[in-house]
């Protein structure tokens, strides 16, 4: 029987859609650069190139588009992994408290480091500015992840792990609040701005770290497609079919959390994409089979993310505002239509 026609078509359409979204995000901006010019700049065939357009595309739009694409795919896949592992339609990449850990790391860096003068443009922290923020975020996320993984090995049911993750997340948020309460206004501005999320902050120099981490995370999800399918019926059935459930739990949680943590480190906390995108794909495909759901989520994640990015810079609105506007209504509709829920035991 193989893969049904509808699903193949959907995946193909999404692939085309992704290419279009990518090109559009390069063409749209403060200045409209025609698609032919975009294509020629990308292909470097030098025909009709306007040097200003080249600069804009190469230094601003291209890294931003790549970041958005990868971050969206990463968040979508991480959300899918968490939803399948915990059989919970509301699970997202940050359900284990990873984002809260990352935020705490960033708060420790942004809100407390060094002496800061009350300047208007106090957005930077000195030489290591953004890199320091990224490092803080990674350390925070990694710490959160290790704690949760260590706990999960000793715990029987996945629901308990989820609750522990939530509790850990709340604890981290509480610490962060304390830091926020005692912080100076100039630094608080930095903090709030970090909280908006942004794909524009990743430079070419940071790509060699960002890209491989995301690609590895995506590869893990693709490689565990079969196992994810086995988990559809729950851990007991999956185990009886030959899946090493404990190991799969660790691999999936680590994979999802790393994807979520890396995106948060480089782009700030991006809301809603992780939860909503898997549901969008399930609805489009009409199937929960991961053999098509995984590629569809990767593609759809990239598309939604690029669209959100384009709207966000077009209207100077924070990224998270746009992703919430896209994601939340969709989620409400999906959950309402699915009266019996996607996963129930």
């Amino acid at each position, binding site marked *: 029987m193989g893969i049904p026609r509808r699903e193949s078509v959907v995946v193909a359409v999404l692939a085309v859609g992704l290419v279009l979204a990518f090109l559009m995000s390069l063409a749209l901006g403060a200045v409209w650069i025609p698609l032919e010019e975009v294509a020629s700049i990308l292909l470097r065939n030098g025909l009709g190139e306007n040097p200003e357009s080249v600069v804009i595309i190469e230094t601003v739009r291209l890294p931003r588009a790549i970041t958005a694409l990868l971050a969206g795919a990463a968040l979508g896949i991480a959300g899918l992994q968490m939803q399948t592992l915990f059989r919970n339609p509301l699970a997202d990449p940050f359900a284990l408290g990873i984002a809260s850990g990352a935020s705490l790391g960033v708060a420790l860096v942004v809100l407390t480091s060094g002496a800061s003068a009350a300047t208007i443009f106090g957005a930077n922290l000195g030489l290591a500015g953004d890199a320091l923020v990224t490092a803080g975020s990674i350390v925070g996320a990694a710490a959160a992840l290790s704690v949760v993984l260590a706990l999960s090995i000793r715990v029987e049911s996945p629901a308990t792990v989820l609750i522990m993750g939530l509790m850990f997340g709340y604890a981290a948020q509480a610490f962060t609040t304390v830091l926020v309460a*005692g912080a100076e206004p100039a630094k608080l501005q930095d903090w709030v701005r970090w909280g908006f999320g942004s794909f524009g902050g990743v430079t070419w120099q940071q790509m060699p770290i960002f890209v491989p981490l995301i690609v590895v995370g995506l590869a893990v999800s693709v490689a565990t497609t079969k196992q994810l399918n086995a988990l559809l019926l729950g851990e007991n059935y999956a185990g009886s079919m030959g899946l090493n459930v404990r190991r799969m739990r660790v691999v999936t949680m680590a994979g999802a959390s790393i994807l979520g943590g890396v995106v948060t480190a480089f782009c700030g906390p991006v809301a809603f994409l992780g939860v909503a995108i898997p549901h969008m794909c399930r609805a489009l495909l009409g199937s929960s089979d991961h053999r098509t759901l995984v590629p569809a989520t990767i593609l759809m994640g990239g598309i939604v993310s690029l669209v959100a990015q384009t709207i966000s810079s077009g209207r100077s609105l924070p990224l998270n505002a746009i992703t919430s506007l896209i994601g939340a209504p969709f989620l409400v509709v999906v959950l309402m239509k699915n009266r019996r829920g996607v996963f129930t035991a």
Partner: protein
Amino acid sequence: MHKPQRPCLLLAAFLMAMIVSSCARSQPAPSTSAGKGCVENFDVATDYFPEKATIEFAENIAVEYRRFYKVVTVKRPSEGGIAERYVLVLCGAPRPLLPAELAGAPVIPVPISSMFSDSATHMPLLVELGRVDVLTGINEARYVTTEPVLDRIRQGLAIEYAPNYVINTELVLAKKPAMMMVGGGYPEEYKTIRKAGIPVVINTEWEESTALGRAEWLKYMAFFLNEEAKAQRSFDGIRDRYMALRERTRALPRTQRPRVMTGVAVRGMFEVSGGESYVSKLIADAGGDYVWSDNTSRGVMTVDLEEQIARASNADFWINGGQWESLKGMLREEPRYKQFKPLREGRVWLYNRLVNAAGAHDYWSRGVTRPDLILEDLIKIFHPELASQHEFVWYKQVPAE
């Protein structure tokens, strides 16, 4: 006819007594503070404010003198806020009968004898008026760069009342300053302080869109100290100096004005001064051509990085950026800065020549009252030949490494 007149006299006397006693009732006991500058024998016909300040540049201040009291208005205490009014009554004078619209206004006896402040930008106002002696409390000492004030703090004559950004309300109430001047926002604690009887007045010099407008808040501080004469003299001097400096560049045509950019990159966006901000006007007065001069924002605004590249990549100078130690450091932080000519040619200037140990810039204290010096610094950057005698006060070129 005597007999019938006696009742009339009695009636007249009775009526007189009534009138006199009711007059006495409308004149409550005179203020008890018989301090320096207070009125001894109040005379309702005297104009107790012979030296009146006039406001030329500051858009947010208005003042009305009414012989023994002043009505001071801050038109925009916050974004979209309604005007605040304060009634400053000369001490020793009776409380005035106020019209309905001033019914809720705080009544403050002046000159004040003590004061708390929540901003380092208020300090130079006191120094310029020679009245640092009136300061008894500051929110955070580490941001103060003004020597006389630091001295006072060291001697314990002025205390710190919000050491970690948490206002110690009880301390404020215990010290009972005659007035509290705050820079912006009214956190809940200030409401409590007001209710406890300590007047809280707002100082929004940072909202002014011209450098001279900001400096003119010197007069605002003077209202409370009855030092209008000093303030007027001081400000006039500064204003004249500023105008004279401006004359040096006024006639320069656009072609002779270097293009100037401001700002710092944050996550793919660029934060810059708006076109109607005081920075933009300073640049124009200093003979520069601000790349965003056509914009209407009065403060700081955020633009997409690519817009900034489009506008400013060919600028000649870059002022007012971030906390950069070197050009190399700038590139490490954001490699895309190399798109901007001023960085490539090493013409990035910051006002960080005078910074205290805690990282507070003197530019934000003394710079507020001495816009003429800022202007001179900027002229020296853009047109060094027009300010050859001047030595930089706050501006410093960012070194290569």
